[in-house]
C-alpha cells in the first residue's frame, strides 16, 4: 500500500459570488510513478469535481500546469509526489490573473510580452517559397535552441520579487526571449533597436539579480547567463560602445 498523502489546495473561485479564499485538504493514497498531475486528477475524479486547474500536455511542454508546490513554482506534471513530503500545499502562481483555484491566465500576460518584445524575426528579405531555406550554422542553431526551450509556464515571473512588485517588469522569460532574437542572425534588428525593447527598468535594467528564476526554471534554462548577456549587450548598445574581441 502506498503512502497516505495530504494535499492542501488553495480554493477560491472569483466567479462564484461570495466565495472566500481558503485552503482545503484532500487525502489520497500515493502510488508508483504518481505525479502531481495524476494526484490532482484523482482528486477531481474521486473527491471533488469542483477543483479547477490547468493541464494540456502532461509532459512539460505546454507550460500550463505551473503552480506553487510547497511554496515554489513548478510544473505539476513534472513533479513526482514521492519527492514531496506527505503533507504539502498547492497554490496558484502569483502575478497572473486568477481564473479559479489553481488556474491562472498566463495567456494574456504572455501575449502582452509577445507584442512588447516584438518576438518575431524582423527581416527585410522577401520570402521565396521556391528557394531552399538558408542553412544555419549548427553552433548558432544550438545557441538559439537554449533560450527557445522556454515553455512560457510563468514560473520565473511568479518567483521573481521584482515581477511581483512591479507589473511592468517583463521577467526572466521576457529578457530570455529577447536574448533568443539577439542571437538569431536572421533577425536584422540592430542592438539599438533591441535597446528600445528591453533597455529600461521594465526590461533588463529592472532585474535585481535575485536569481530565483535561475533556480526554479522547470526547463533549467541558463537564465543567469542569458540575462547577463542581454544586460551587457544592452549596456553596450545604450552607451554606443563596442568591444571588439570580447564575447559579450
Amino acid at each position, binding site marked *: 500500500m502506498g503512502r497516505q498523502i495530504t494535499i492542501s489546495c488553495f480554493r477560491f473561485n472569483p466567479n462564484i459570488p461570495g466565495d472566500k479564499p481558503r485552503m482545503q485538504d484532500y487525502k489520497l493514497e500515493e502510488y508508483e510513478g504518481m505525479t502531481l498531475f495524476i494526484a490532482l486528477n484523482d482528486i477531481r475524479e474521486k473527491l471533488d469535481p469542483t477543483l479547477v486547474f490547468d493541464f494540456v500536455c502532461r509532459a512539460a511542454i505546454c507550460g500550463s500546469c505551473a503552480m*506553487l508546490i510547497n*511554496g*515554489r*513554482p513548478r510544473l505539476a506534471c513534472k513533479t513526482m509526489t514521492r519527492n514531496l513530503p506527505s503533507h504539502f500545499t498547492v*497554490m496558484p502562481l*502569483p502575478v497572473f490573473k486568477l481564473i479559479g483555484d489553481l488556474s491562472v491566465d498566463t495567456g494574456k*500576460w504572455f501575449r*502582452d*510580452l509577445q*507584442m*512588447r518584445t516584438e518576438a518575431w524575426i524582423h527581416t527585410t528579405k522577401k520570402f521565396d517559397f521556391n528557394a531552399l531555406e538558408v542553412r544555419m550554422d549548427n553552433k548558432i542553431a544550438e545557441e538559439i535552441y537554449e533560450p527557445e526551450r522556454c515553455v512560457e509556464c510563468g514560473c520565473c515571473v511568479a*518567483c521573481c*520579487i521584482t515581477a*511581483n*512588485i512591479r*507589473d*511592468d517588469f*517583463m521577467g526572466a522569460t521576457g529578457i530570455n526571449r529577447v536574448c533568443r532574437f539577439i542571437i538569431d542572425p536572421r533577425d536584422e534588428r540592430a542592438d539599438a533597436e533591441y*535597446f*528600445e*525593447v528591453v*533597455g*529600461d*527598468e*521594465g526590461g533588463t*535594467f*529592472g*532585474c*535585481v*539579480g*535575485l*536569481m*530565483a528564476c*535561475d*533556480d*526554479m526554471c522547470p526547463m533549467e534554462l541558463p537564465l*543567469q547567463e542569458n*540575462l*547577463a548577456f542581454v*544586460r*551587457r549587450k*544592452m*549596456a553596450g548598445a*545604450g*552607451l554606443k560602445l563596442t568591444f571588439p574581441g570580447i564575447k559579450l
Partner: protein
Amino acid sequence: MELAKNLNASVNKSFGKTDLLVDLAQSISGVILIGFLWMHMLFVATIVVSPELFDALSEGLDKYYLAQFGIPATILVIIIHIFLAGRRAPLRLRDLRITYRMASLMKHYDTWVWVGQVITALGVGIMASMHLWTILTHWPLRAATSAARVASNGPADITWGSFTFPYYVVFYVIFLIFGEYHGGFGLYRILVKWGWWERHTMGWVLKGITVIIVVLGLTALYTFTKIAANPALGGAIH
C-alpha cells in the same frame, strides 16, 4: 504589463538612457564602495602587524592628502549609492508584504539573502554615519587614539569583574559583520547581473574573502583592546 505600456513602447519609441545609466551607476558605486571597504579593512589590520606600521600608513595617508580627499569622496559615493540602490528596496508597505510573503513561501536562499542586504543596508547607513562622526571628531587617527576609542567603555578595563558594557567593541563587531555582509553579497549580485561567471562558485569565493576580512577585522579589534590596556604601547586605560 498593461496595454498602455505596450502602446507607449510602440508609439513613443525611445526609452532614453536614464534607466541604463542609473543601473550602471548603482553597480559602479557598489564596486567602488566594496573596494573601499576591503582596502579599509586591510589598512586597519596593519595594527595586527605593529602599531608603528599602522601609524606610518595613517600618517602617509594624511601627508599625501589621501585621507582628506578620500573621506569626502567616499561620503559622496555612499550618498549616491543610497539613492541609487535604495530605489530597488521594497519600501512601500505593499512591497514589503509581497516580499515577505514570497520569500517565506519559496524559502529561496538568494531571495532571503537579498532581504538581509536591505536590512543590513539600513544598519550600515546608520552605523557608517556614527563611525564617521567619531573618527572625524577624533582626528588624526593613530594607533593609540584608535585603541583608546575602541576600548572606551569596557575592554581596556582589565578588571572584567566590574563589568562595563563594551559599547565600542560591540558596535564595531556588528558594524563589521553588517558591512561585510552587505558588501560581499552586493558584489555577488553585481557580478551575477553583469558577469560571465557561474554564480555558485563565485558565491563561495566571495564568501571566503568575506570571512577572511571579518576575521582580520575582529583580530584588529582585539589587538586594539590589548594596546589600550598596555601603557608600554602607549595605551591609556581610561
